[in-house]
């Protein structure tokens, strides 16, 4: 069932405009759980950037239908026109934030090149055989004194906003680039100078708030992770809370030494909530943030911490490096990955100020109990996560960023990434590795590929926002 036909099944008597569901996505987060079918395909960012494989990066189409003969196989590859893009994160032209906009479809994937600053548009009308339809060349992006595109969110009325981590020189400040519904650059979304560092963002329109995080200047993180740059203050540790309508920063919170490198940031899905979480990757802490209703100011507090571990082959304790997090569509669980340790975990966040560890899996990475699946060595730990809309299947890939992979898991370049899956019981709060599921990106015809962000054709737990 496509998004375009979904509304016929969900006629609503509610008079609230957001329930007149004529466009893409779902009327509410709960509707996404109830109405979605099991994900049968995944789109996965796949890359050769930074290796000697003389091929462009590609969007992999992975078969997730257990009844299919090609289950767990890459059934199509949409190759980019150039080499060296470093495909990384991507997003849709439209999601549930436009669910009341008739005629708009969730159909086009916006696929940026993190290194190249080239922005691709892929038409997924044929879900198993998507097609590259538009390319915005880096020179067009540089004209707005921006580079290094990262997070893509669609915003109501068909607009697309992309977080940009650097200026045209790969230095600071970054900002946000806005595309129109014809996939042309509309301009800069934010007035220059609101922020210096940028990374991920999420918006909660009913609360008129957007939150953005900080990695570093592209010229700092592109070549690899240098601890001296942390000591020199070249990595981020702040959260920026924006006035969503005005596009201006209203409040900045410095997370301090315990909040180094805040990366993925998620508001709860319910549009009523001002609560959210951010994973500070280097400090390996989860911060909970929320609006203090008395003062109208946002507050952030460390809510979960993960400890470094001694490793016989390492001189210093190994930090977990909590590189990705996501919130289940029912807002009950926070999932996350400890990339260096080799762990995925789920915490009960039904009381967001007091997360409660529900379960975890020790797999891959430098400490994982499971180091091999179906005879395939796993090497790197769990990294980018994606959860089924019903919250019952968690998938992940293992590449972080080509240059950082080379530092911490050099084998990833030689063997390629894997995509793995765990079955989740959201009633019992448990995770179980599905040992029958393995997608081996090491088997790609041109050579072993890295795999990064994952999306489903009908929206997922990190794509959709509700007005």
């Amino acid at each position, binding site marked *: 069932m496509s998004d375009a036909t979904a509304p016929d099944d969900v006629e609503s008597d509610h008079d609230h405009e957001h329930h007149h569901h004529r466009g893409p996505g779902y009327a509410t987060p709960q509707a996404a759980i109830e109405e979605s079918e099991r994900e049968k395909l995944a789109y996965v960012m796949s890359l050769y*950037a*930074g*290796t*000697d494989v*003389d091929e462009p990066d590609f969007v992999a189409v992975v078969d997730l239908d257990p009844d299919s003969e090609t289950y767990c196989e890459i059934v199509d590859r949409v190759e980019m026109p150039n*080499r*060296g*893009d*470093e495909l990384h994160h991507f997003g849709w032209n439209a999601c549930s934030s436009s669910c009341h906009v008739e005629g708009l479809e969730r159909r086009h994937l916006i696929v940026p090149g993190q*290194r*190249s*600053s080239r922005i691709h548009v892929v038409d997924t009308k044929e879900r198993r055989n998507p097609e590259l339809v538009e390319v915005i060349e*880096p020179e067009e992006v540089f004209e707005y004194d921006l*580079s290094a595109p990262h997070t893509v969110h669609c915003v109501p009325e068909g607009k697309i906003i992309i977080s940009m981590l*650097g200026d*045209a*020189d*790969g*230095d600071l400040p970054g900002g946000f680039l806005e595309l129109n519904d014809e996939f042309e650059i509309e301009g800069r979304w934010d007035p220059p100078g609101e922020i210096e560092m940028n990374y991920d963002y999420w918006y909660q329109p009913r609360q008129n708030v957007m939150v953005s995080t900080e990695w570093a200047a*592209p*010229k700092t993180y*592109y*070549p*690899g*992770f*240098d*601890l001296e740059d942390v000591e020199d203050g070249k990595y981020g540790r702040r959260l920026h809370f924006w006035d969503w309508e005005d596009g201006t920063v209203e409040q900045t919170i410095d997370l301090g030494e315990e909040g180094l490198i805040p990366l993925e940031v998620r508001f709860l899905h319910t549009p009523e909530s001002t609560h959210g979480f951010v994973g500070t990757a280097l400090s390996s802490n989860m911060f909970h943030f929320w609006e203090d209703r008395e003062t109208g100011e946002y507050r952030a507090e460390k809510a979960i911490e993960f400890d470094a571990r001694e490793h016989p*082959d*390492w*001189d*210093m*304790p*190994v*930090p977990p490096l909590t590189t990705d997090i996501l919130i289940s569509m029912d807002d009950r669980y926070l999932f996350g990955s400890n990339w260096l340790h080799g762990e995925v975990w789920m915490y009960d966040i039904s009381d967001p100020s007091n997360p409660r560890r529900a379960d975890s899996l020790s797999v891959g990475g430098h400490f994982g109990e499971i180091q091999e699946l179906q005879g395939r060595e796993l090497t790197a730990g769990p990294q980018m996560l994606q959860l089924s809309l019903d919250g019952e299947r968690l998938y992940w890939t293992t590449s972080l960023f*080509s*240059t950082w992979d*080379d*530092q*911490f898991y*050099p084998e990833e*370049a030689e063997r390629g990434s894997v995509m793995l899956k765990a079955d989740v019981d959201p009633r019992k709060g448990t995770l179980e590795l599905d040992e029958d599921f393995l997608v081996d990106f090491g088997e790609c015809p041109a050579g072993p590929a890295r795999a990064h962000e994952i999306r489903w054709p009908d929206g997922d737990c990190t794509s959709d926002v509700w007005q």
Partner: protein
Amino acid sequence: MATHDVTLEWPNDPTRTVAVDADETVLQAAERAGEALPYGCRTGACGTCVGRLLEVDGGAAADDRTDEERTVDVDDAFAYRRAPRALKPRHRDDGYVLLCVATPEADCRIAVGSQIQSELVDNPWK
């Protein structure tokens, strides 16, 4: 127009020599010659295309990366059309050069391939 011969050395592969014109970068000349070098941003910000200078004009090399034995500075051997922002001073001292923005000013030999990039940073905890 001055053209310089640049010999590209991959590990475990035959070396290739390409003639680099004064108005092009090493990366552009390699592409013209059908030699695939790694690259990313093509503006000098990301370091994916980095090579390591081994020898200039048959003279001394940065090969062993000890200052005493080097006689040619990498910054004298190349003209940059944009600043090599991805490189720190220590990288430039060690002979690293960003091939996407560098034009040679002498014949030289350069170690190339994706493993050169991974020499720029170590695992800081291991």
